[in-house]
């Protein structure tokens, strides 16, 4: 997460207008009205804008997911768990990604209107990229050793859950896997 947050070199330029656009524009995109105070709390935008620090990438991504979660189901503005996206079941979460990858034309219009030049017309690309990357990188991280890796010793504290699920056996230096050469041929020429 830390690496992600320091990834964009100067995040204020795209981030602040995006956050303001979502704060001001999302209520108009919902199927049912949601009280303004509840919506701002649900999205957590005020805390982001009140801070003097630059807005990191990870809360910006969370904000987009939560805005789309409210588009999918306005009732997720409150409830158990911490944020609207986390209050959706798997199928409805998939609906959020359908909107992102679409890319959601209403949200694109909203964001592009608020982005300054030369970033106007970049919102649809951003949403499409995020729609793919969030799922791919979540899969990569989730099935890797990340959660049980000790950076100090560069060793694993436990067997990664992705290895357990997939029945994976790591190799130390190699494996007794050699099965010869196809048709006994060890070289070709010409």
């Amino acid at each position, binding site marked *: 997460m830390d*690496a*992600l947050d*320091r*990834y*964009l*070199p100067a995040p204020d*330029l795209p981030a602040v207008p995006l956050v303001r656009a979502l704060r001001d524009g999302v209520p108009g995109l919902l199927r049912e009205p949601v009280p303004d105070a509840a919506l701002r709390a649900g999205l957590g935008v005020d805390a982001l804008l009140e801070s003097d620090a630059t807005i990191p990438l990870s809360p910006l991504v969370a904000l987009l997911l939560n805005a789309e979660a409210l588009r999918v189901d306005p009732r997720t503005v409150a409830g158990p768990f911490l944020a609207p996206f986390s209050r959706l079941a*798997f*199928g409805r979460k*998939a*609906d959020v*990604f*359908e909107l992102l*990858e*679409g890319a959601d034309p209403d949200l694109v219009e909203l964001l592009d209107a608020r982005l300054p030049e030369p*970033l106007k017309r970049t919102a649809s*690309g*951003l949403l*499409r*990229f995020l729609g*793919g990357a969030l*799922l*791919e*990188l*979540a*899969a*990569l*991280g*989730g*099935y*890797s*050793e*990340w959660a049980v*890796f000790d950076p100090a010793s*560069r060793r*694993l504290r436990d067997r990664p859950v*992705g*290895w357990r*699920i*997939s*029945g*994976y056996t*790591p*190799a*130390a*230096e*190699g*494996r*007794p*896997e*050699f*099965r*010869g*050469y*196809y048709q006994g*041929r*060890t*070289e*070709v020429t*010409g």
Partner: protein
Amino acid sequence: MSRDVIVVGAGGGGPVVAKELAARGLDVLLLEAGARHADPRREWTHLENDANNPLTGFLRVGPADRSKPAWLREEPQNSYLLQASGVGGTTLHYYGNSPRAYRGVFQGYEGPDKGAYDSAHAFPFTYDELVPYYRWVEATLPVQTAAMGVKETVFLSGAERLGLPVQTTKDTTRWSYRPQENAILQPGGTAGRTGDPERLRYPRATGCTFCGYCLQGCMEPAGAPRNQAAKRSTDNSYVPMALTAPAWSPHGKAVTLLADSYAVKVHTARRDGGLVATGVTWRNGASGDRHREDAEVVVLAGGTTETPRLWLNSGLPDPNGWVGRGYTDHFLDGVTGLFDHDTGSSRGPSSAARCDFPGYGALENIGLPPAMQAFSMSLSDSGIRGRYRNGRGLTGPWDGRTGRLGGPELKEVLAHGIDRLLNVLILTGDDVEPHNRATLSALPPDEHGAVPKVVFRSRRRTRRTLAAREFLARRATELLRRAGATRVYRFDWAPLLLHVHSSMRMGLSADDSVLDADAASRWVGRLYVADNSALANSLGGPNPTLTTQALATRTAERIFVRHFGGDPWVGDETPVPSTDHRVTDAL
């Protein structure tokens, strides 16, 4: 300071030029933006997140200091740009697959399937012209016929039942299947015959140990000198040769290699009425200091995305607008079969068998550890299977519609067993199209200038490209079923940009190419390109590194003859293999 030659980038192509010219006695400076990777046994692990995390992994694209952020590249679409910085570049994570290109993508091809190739963007010389350079590189790396593991026996059993002939030559002239020709040393001694690490130390074990970690950088067998490591990524082959040139070449002069040194500007001057390259400025990643050196010749080899960026950030001319354009990517796709028996998918060198379909592209098996397996099944332009289709969701002989596996389905498929599945990678012979390109991003610049932006209009490719990919997806599915797969998934990958080419292409016409037939810039004298971006097209589908290395050898020879008064050597001399004991001793 003035050098004979400055080479920008120590990936698949740059070290080839550096080594060849160092062998001729030229003073060569080789700049690499990323890490030196001088001691893999201390710096690397076999762990996937530690290696391949795009933000923090040791094979990410970023500065040598892993605590510093990775470099941002903008992709305004669902795509995944899989770059790697550091000495070795993307050969650090490549699979060593070293097929030659198809004849049909070269000038003068008159075969009956001529219309099946992107002949409008053919190479500006014949295939036969390149063959001596292929031979030179194949002997240098060296390239060898791949040994089989269990997954190859499964793949090849399916290929046999497609009714294709087996190919027993380096040249590909017809539809066929075969074990790969890989830049991987064949197993010797205990390698491939035991999993006991105590028995797998060099020289008791030589060559490939079948560890299954090609994607995490090769440092096997343990205890091997750097130039004896199994996979012949350039950090294990051409770079050791470049650094030890006096030991194995009678006139050799050791290359100066500077890692963590990001080239930010190519300098030019007007001479005799024309513009010529005169030198390079780079930025040291640790200190932030900028340095400049001049040279008689500058060679760009930062990669298909980075070379256009450096060109444009340097303000170099682009009169026909083709700098960065014509970016090709093999429009890769993944097809995976589930089996009821062991397939050994996660074991052994990552890809050691293939099928070639000249006129369409190629198929090859790819074995993956679990995280990259999960990644490969999550990459799609067809939405989440069973949930949404994103306007696609293709149907065919595979089971269900195309799409990524999400959440519960991904878990169910992986729980079937990482070694009870088999992946087939689809390598499409995709056409050069001007709207697919690398350009500069409007996002804030970094310390190296405006950042690159890679634009792909993937759904608007040519009819031929789209048809070739569908043809190959059907052949891949058929191969898997004939090998015994009980279920077959096709993912319809979003562009996975790892076989990338032709963004600074050489070409027959000055209207749609940046380089002439010698890989020299059409508009700036003494400036050459020697990475995948110099390729005229996507080769018709075969993996690009060998062809880039053959072309880089030819380019080095052209530079030596044209600018340093030397004679050509390829065809007249015998190449020294990178495993030569003189290289080992000098390291």
